[in-house]
């Protein structure tokens, strides 16, 4: 699909959660640096994949984009207006334009509401989108769009399977005709044979409505399939950002290389010869990240400069896309398929 004008612009976004001590007089003794300086753009009709391990800040990033959390600093501009600073009626209006599909369709749908009420609830808040009389028809249209039977409007979530529930979640996300949908692990709770159905649906909807997706997932092959660009996060920062082919075929950052090589390839041929970079240990705490480069404590290329100077996300010699490593060097780690 054609990629259009810029609709989302994120600059130096920071979200710290204070760590406090004491009950009555809370003193701040530090901060969890969940998102620590993230910048990117998103264009109409584009999909930006975000990958990284648990705790790297990708879900916090999603929450800040949705204005569910206020950023500590930095800006999230949607069509030129900062959602992080918006208040009241303006915030409400901006939220129409960015919606979310949650990970777990078992807990993100209220079990005591019918499907019609769940999908129609956005219209209760944004009454201007659909007048009361039209809502039922609108909801039935949405059910049809996501491949469910419009006659099931009065059923409850427990009467649907996991894949169908995720379709309900997607229909709810579409209700206000947003331009941006943030998908936080939309298929990871689903059975393998159902995942493909939901991914196909998301792609079809993107083509039909020109949606832009922020697609957060840990399944790297799914992210590759759906994304136009991919950002790799580690401890609250991007370590690498580029087109899907650049990230997967020519990764430049050691962390990306390790991450890609750790993904099991669904083909047993030549498995003994496969190169695998096994990282030692666990990621450091985001409350106290290492000085300089945050990956240096687990990096096999680390030298003195890595502890002293923080590598910025920029295009480096010999690589065609942005990476945050002093010793960035493209290295093809996986030949998938």
């Amino acid at each position, binding site marked *: 699909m054609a990629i259009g004008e810029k609709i989302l612009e994120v600059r130096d976004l920071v979200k710290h959660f204070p760590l406090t001590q004491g009950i009555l007089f809370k003193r701040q003794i530090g901060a969890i640096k969940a998102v620590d300086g993230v910048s990117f753009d998103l264009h109409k009709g584009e999909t930006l994949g975000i990958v990284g*391990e*648990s705790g790297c800040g990708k879900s916090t990033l999603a929450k800040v984009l949705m204005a569910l959390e206020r950023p500590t600093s930095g800006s999230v501009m949607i069509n030129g207006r900062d959602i992080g600073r918006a208040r009241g009626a303006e915030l409400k209006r901006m939220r129409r334009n960015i919606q979310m599909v949650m990970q777990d369709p078992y807990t993100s749908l209220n079990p005591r509401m019918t499907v019609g009420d769940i999908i129609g609830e956005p219209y209760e808040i944004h009454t201007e989108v659909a007048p009361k009389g039209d809502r039922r028809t609108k909801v039935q249209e949405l059910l049809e769009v996501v491949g469910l039977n419009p006659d099931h409007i009065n059923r409850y979530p427990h009467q649907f*399977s996991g*894949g*169908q529930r995720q379709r309900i979640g997607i229909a709810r996300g579409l209700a206000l005709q947003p331009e941006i949908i943030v998908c936080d692990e939309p298929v990871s709770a689903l*059975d*393998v*044979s*159902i*995942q*493909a*159905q939901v*991914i*196909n649906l998301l*792609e*079809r909807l993107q083509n039909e409505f020109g949606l832009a997706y922020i697609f957060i997932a*840990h399944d*790297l*092959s*799914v992210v*590759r*399939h759906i994304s136009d660009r991919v950002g790799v996060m580690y401890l609250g920062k991007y370590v690498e950002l580029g087109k*899907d082919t650049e990230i*997967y075929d020519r990764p430049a950052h050691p962390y990306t290389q*390790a*991450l890609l*090589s*750790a*993904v*099991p*390839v*669904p*083909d*047993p*041929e030549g*498995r003994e010869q496969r190169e*695998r970079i*096994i*990282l030692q*240990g*666990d990621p450091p705490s985001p409350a106290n990240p290492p000085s300089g480069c945050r990956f240096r404590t687990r990096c096999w290329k680390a030298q003195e400069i890595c502890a002293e100077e923080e590598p910025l996300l920029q295009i480096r010699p010999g690589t065609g896309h942005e990476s945050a490593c002093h010793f960035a060097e493209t290295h093809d780690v996986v030949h*998938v*398929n």
Partner: protein
Amino acid sequence: MLPVEGGLGNEPLLAVDNLHVEFHTRAGIVRAVNGVSYTVDPGETLAVLGESGSGKSVTAQAIMGILDMPPASIPKGEIRFKGTDMLKLSEEARTQVRGQRIAMIFQDALSALNPVFTVGWQISEMFRVHRGMSKGDAMKKAVELMDRVRIPAARQRVNDYPHQFSGGMRQRIMIAMSIALDPEVLIADEPTTALDVTVQAQIMELLAELQRESQMGLILITHDLGVVADVADKIAVMYAGRIVENAPVHDIYRAPAHPYTKGLLESIPRVDQKGQDLYAIKGLPPNLLELPSGCSFNPRCPYRQGNCETDVPPLHQISGTRGSACHYWREVLDGDR
């Protein structure tokens, strides 16, 4: 004395033979396992592949003898460990096998570990209960084991509680407990599903190493086609409580002989299919309360013909090591649709 002794002869280390498991619920009888047979030999890795509800975990729980009976019951079948049918043993005799000769690792280490005891206590419990060791000796053994599963600073961390460990370290503790008494068969039920890919790679490498050292038979239960391709020697694919295909790992990935396996493999996103729809198996996994007549997969199957709705396909022997429970396995194997 352990009740199961004697040489192997021609008998496999562990053989599940025509096992049936039912659950008696208010809604009716749920037939979770309908005639499953598989074998594992020393040093061999069998991957049991299937979606939720396919009966893969229930089979494992039946082997371990940890099914709640009632509501579960085993109307038919044998589970032979070195030739002895364990379903006929007394509960006391089974306790001797469980944990000592056959051990199991669970998916979610945080809920499998007891939060109010230190990890050292929980690991050493194996030695105190099964080997009658003193507290001090058992604790020494616990430290040794934590070293063996590569938990850094084991001596200092032995008195920590489960919540003080990361997800990967907790899974290592689970592994330490399961290998404490040198079992001959290890059942790993989705051991890495809750973990990040980089940690998954560490854990799978650890399991492979332990298996090489001790020549355990490993039953790996998973839904991840990548993990299976990486480590398995042979695969049993389960669907709706039956094994629909079993084969050595290379054969199945090269040319699947059952439409379900084929569908799963084709639904993996591939680089050359970018921008196209993923192949998706249509429909939903069946409700175990009302399984479709004939072949359970027939409502979703592109190869379906008239007799699929009436005749349950037996596991056709394709070669000495391969079987497929499809009437039309020849067509599937040839790739005609």
